């Protein structure tokens, strides 16, 4: 309990430091001004969300191959955490876009594929709620999770393959693109902080799923008596 509290405090300190760095250390962007500072929160959340979906995909794949209950628990936990991060992306994006573009939303390839990703993982969780039998629920949701992950490379590639309203990539983009060195350091520090938060939330959510597994096992034991 104490160890979890210390880890939680360390993660909170890290995300607080990242927020401080994005406001007070990163220089102001020339054309957009202060509103660009949302980028450090928005893009770092997007990267952490994608990592959570990658964890979900690997857990789903492992479940299909090995039928390991722990993989099922990890899959649903990572899907929920990834969904929370993607929700943050879908909220902070339009808040940034409105003063910069003059519109809240447009159906370009990046925004649409991100919204579809969000819908896919909402469907993944709804599917799990609809299925009662544990083995069937785990298998069908793992298969659906593998399918849902196909949208992640599409989200990544959307601003590289097509012309979009969304800004072109500044990380892993075309030659000549990139961030000013201090901005780059602050961005990668924010990515680290959001990943730490993602791991913390994932471990908490996994504990809940493990507890649910223990409960169902005891329930079966009670019914068998």
């Amino acid at each position: 309990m104490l160890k979890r509290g210390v880890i939680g405090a360390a993660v909170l300190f890290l995300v607080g430091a990242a927020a401080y760095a994005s406001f007070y250390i990163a220089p102001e962007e020339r054309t957009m001004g202060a509103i660009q500072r949302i980028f450090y929160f928005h893009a770092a959340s997007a990267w952490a969300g994608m990592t959570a979906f990658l964890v979900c995909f690997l857990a789903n794949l492992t479940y299909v191959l090995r039928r390991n209950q722990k993989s099922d628990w990890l899959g649903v936990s990572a899907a929920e955490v990834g969904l929370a991060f993607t929700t943050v992306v879908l909220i902070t994006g339009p808040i940034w876009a409105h003063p910069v573009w003059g519109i809240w939303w447009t159906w370009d390839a990046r925004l649409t594929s991100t919204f579809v990703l969000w819908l896919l993982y909402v469907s993944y969780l709804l599917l799990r709620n609809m299925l009662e039998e544990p083995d069937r629920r785990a298998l069908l949701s793992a298969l659906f999770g593998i399918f849902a992950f196909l949208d992640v490379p599409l989200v990544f590639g959307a601003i590289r393959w097509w012309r979009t309203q969304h800004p072109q990539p500044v990380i892993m983009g075309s030659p000549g693109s990139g961030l000013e060195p201090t901005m780059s350091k602050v961005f990668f520090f924010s990515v680290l902080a959001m990943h730490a938060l993602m791991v913390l939330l994932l471990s908490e959510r996994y504990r809940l799923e493990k507890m649910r597994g223990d409960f169902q096992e005891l329930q079966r034991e009670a019914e068998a008596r």
Partner: protein
Amino acid sequence: MKNLDSIFAAYLFGWAVFFVFYLTVAKRASALRGDLDRLKDTLNRGK
């Protein structure tokens, strides 16, 4: 600082999502812990 209200809104709503998510996990865990303890008691009494 221009657009401060938008920056504030982005951080506020963003952190609210993480906070609410954490709260729902903690609430579900607390309810399940109660159910688990009750079931364990029932099973122990039945032995």
